[in-house]
């Protein structure tokens, strides 16, 4: 159970870090939409869990945030990747690829 939770949380971190790596500053709604869009609507984050994840990642120093006016001139919190976040991303990305490769090997064998 513990394992499963960590994997899920790791996946959300990975998706968010990757999304921010490909763009400048984004607010939560944009991040959620971008993930849905690039995954052709397969991955839909539960938006209520996105924000705790963002705050956790900011505390960890992987992202920073700033309040700015949104495109329609509302006050929104924008997040961007930090250098340490970029390092974290490549770490998590590697771990994820290894995990998927392992699962695929088992699937092919069975």
């Amino acid at each position, binding site marked *: 159970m513990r394992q499963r939770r960590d994997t899920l949380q790791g996946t959300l971190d990975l998706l968010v870090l990757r999304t921010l790596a490909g763009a400048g500053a984004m*607010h*939560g*709604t944009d991040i959620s*939409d971008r993930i849905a869009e690039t995954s052709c609507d397969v991955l*839909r984050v*539960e*938006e*209520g*869990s996105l*924000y*705790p*994840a963002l*705050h*956790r990642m*900011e*505390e960890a120093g992987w992202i920073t945030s700033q309040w700015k006016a*949104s495109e*329609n001139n*509302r*006050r*929104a*919190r924008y997040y961007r990747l930090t250098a340490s976040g970029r390092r974290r991303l490549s770490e998590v990305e590697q771990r994820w690829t290894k995990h998927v490769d392992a699962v695929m090997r088992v699937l092919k064998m069975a």
Partner: protein
Amino acid sequence: MSALTRLLNRFRRTLLEREFDDEIRFHLEERTRRNAAAGMSPQDAAADALDRFGSVDRAKAGMRSARTVAHPTLAVSASTLVVLSLIGAIYWSSRLPVYDLGAGITAPVPIVTPHPQYTASAMRAKIQGAVRVRCVVRPDGVCGDVTVVRSLDRRYGLDEEALRASRNWRFRPALRAGTPVATRIDLEMRFALR
């Protein structure tokens, strides 16, 4: 801990809580706006935004625990709240304009979102689904005038339970030109057996 540290901590927590609220509010408004732009009716757009977000309480608890120093504090005691809402009820029941969500109105943001309880008989009858409740969120954030607009179950009491739960929802009220106003919104109260 010195009195000053306590005071500063408390100040920081208040600031954090406000930021959480502002961020969630922006998200719900932005999601509602995007939904509407995609062709949903204002009611559906707002209901879907809440639905996709899930529990606001849980999100805020998660944000709080992410911020290490932050702890939930009850700035206002329960009895003060009761007195305030009584005054509010008396004051605002003397007729107020009620707005529908739309241009120039920022949507109310749910802060306290109790789940409806199953009744034993509905559970035995294995009834699942959602009751859509329409309510007026008053400027004091209390959910008044609740009615069922889409019923799930009258027989075993789930409609009633949905109404009872929605009366206990609390919101940051809608704003119109910066002033809290009453708005009419729909809430989906879900019942699911596991």
